[in-house]
């Protein structure tokens, strides 16, 4: 398929605009990780995933599992841009009676496969979904996004072992390696050392990519489709707060939403219409 990298790059930027607007409106939420994953989500929702926003429960759809649920603004924005619901609804994030819960809730909003927020819980569920696909002889693939920080959770490694044992080759774990977590840099809070070596030692195939260079991201996903006897891990090196100068690389923006002034400045930097 002909891939329009520029289109995907632009979608990423539009998603970033939505993230800033919805978080400013909500007054709380997680900005840095959401912005950092915008390009990956654009590639996933507008190229990689086989899905149908008009039929969210299509049984042969690829499954997408967001493990680090706190970056849900990026998923909500990608879902809205894909047509699952109107972009206007993004402004309801974290408000009473909204389908857009502060952390994603599967039964609240079509397009979500799981509920998440508590860390270390996405990969095992994705493995279960992938196993069910194998049992039912379905050809769907399961894409899971995890954070680097949640690799401090023991449960993550239980799931890494499990997926390797059962050779769940229709499972791809995309690690958002942005080196920040809520209280500091990952390397200071609890160093992860080499995730590549760890995953390889557990029996996974590992691909590393920039989290922002669209052609490189596309290549990583394309490569993952050729791996047929082990699960695949894509380590995506991302910049937290990507696109907004005063947020980039700053762990202080992990769990903070911009105020109106900060949001205006961010939208200018992102070349998005102001709120």
């Amino acid at each position, binding site marked *: 398929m002909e891939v329009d990298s520029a289109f995907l790059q632009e979608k990423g930027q539009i998603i970033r605009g939505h993230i800033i607007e919805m978080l400013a409106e909500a007054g709380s939420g997680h900005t840095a990780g959401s912005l950092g994953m915008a390009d990956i989500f654009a590639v996933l929702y507008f190229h990689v995933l086989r899905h149908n926003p008009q039929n969210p429960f299509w049984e042969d759809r690829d499954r997408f599992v967001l493990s680090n649920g706190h970056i849900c603004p990026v998923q909500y924005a990608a879902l809205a841009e894909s047509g699952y619901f109107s972009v206007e609804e993004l402004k309801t994030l974290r408000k009473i009676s909204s389908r857009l819960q502060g952390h994603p*809730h*599967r*039964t609240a909003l079509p397009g979500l*496969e*799981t*509920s*998440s*927020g*508590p860390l*270390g*819980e996405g*990969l*095992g*569920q*994705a*493995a*279960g*979904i*992938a*196993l*069910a*696909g194998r*049992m*039912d002889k379905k050809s769907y693939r399961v894409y899971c996004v995890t954070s680097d920080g949640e690799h401090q959770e*023991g*449960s993550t490694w*239980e*799931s890494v*072992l*499990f997926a390797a*044992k*059962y050779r769940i080759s229709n499972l791809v774990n995309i690690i958002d390696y942005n080196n920040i977590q809520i209280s500091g840099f990952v390397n200071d809070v609890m160093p992860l050392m080499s995730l590549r070596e760890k995953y390889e030692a557990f029996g996974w195939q590992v691909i590393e990519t920039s989290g922002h260079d669209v052609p490189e991201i596309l290549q990583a996903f394309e490569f993952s489709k050729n791996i047929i006897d082990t699960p695949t891990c894509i380590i995506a090196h991302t910049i937290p707060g990507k696109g907004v100068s005063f947020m980039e690389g700053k762990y202080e923006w992990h769990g903070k939403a911009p105020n109106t002034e900060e949001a205006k400045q961010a939208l200018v930097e992102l070349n998005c219409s102001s709120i």
Partner: protein
Amino acid sequence: MLNPDLHLNTQLFEVDCAKAPTRDGFGVGLEYLGEHNDDVVVLSADLSESTRCDGFMKKFPERYIECGVSEQNMALVAAGLGVCGKIPFISSYAVFSPGRNWEVLRTTTVYNNLPVKIAGHHAGIVTGPDGPTHQATEDIASVRSWPGMTVLVPCDALQAEKATIASADINSPVYLRFSREKTPIITTQETPFEIGKAYAYWVSEKPQVLIASSGHMVYQALAAARILEKENISSTVLSLATIKPLDKKTIIAHAKTAKAIVSVEDHQIEGGLGGALAELFSKEYPIRMGYVGLKNTFAESASGTDLLRQYGLDALAIACEVKRVLDL
């Protein structure tokens, strides 16, 4: 006397009464489900033999998933299977599941109302010599407050089999509590069982007390009723296999015929069956209550029989508590 309408085991008080652990009934129930329901899958965390999944494992290897010593991941994989239309049974000791993986279950299975069945084994102090690390005595409290839960504590191996099979028809999470020790078979195949229903296993003409019990403690409660009868103290013994949702109508109807209630369980009183009944009666029908169960303590290593006696959970202790609440 034993309720003649319920086809209970008439040999119950004989020396050679048949005994089996409730976990055996779980194993038999799983094999039945394996044959009759293609959606049923079974997951175990390295405890397939002692939690009686091994029969299912041998007959249906393609639907048995060994998770290793990883109770959190077992719960996660089950949730993933559950969203895809499977009916997963996860099996481990109750201290580990729903103990260690409590929040995983809460977020993934319970919050999403998935049909995952959580089988918690080695429950209660009757677990015995392994000691308090392996005797789950807070598990009912820990799952009972989850919204939408069904909590089942079968009284014998036969009822455990029926409960296991019936749980698969409930399209939401179910907690099934099983014990390790052999305990008397109280019921027969003909004894009625329905999730959500309480049954009076012991009936008297003018009951002075209502003894409400669940799990293997139903036997101790019936033995206590027999002791009390000899002392001219009449009672009703309710068998409450379903702790959530409680069969409020039946329980209150029986309470209205008695002067007091005594709850009987192999679990901490706080948050368990006693707590559940206290919540019900304080709101619907205030009545004097007594409690038999663990009282703010862990037990120790010993035989189940010795522990029930030492910690005040045997038939004699129940009879004493009945007399206390009746001011006798």
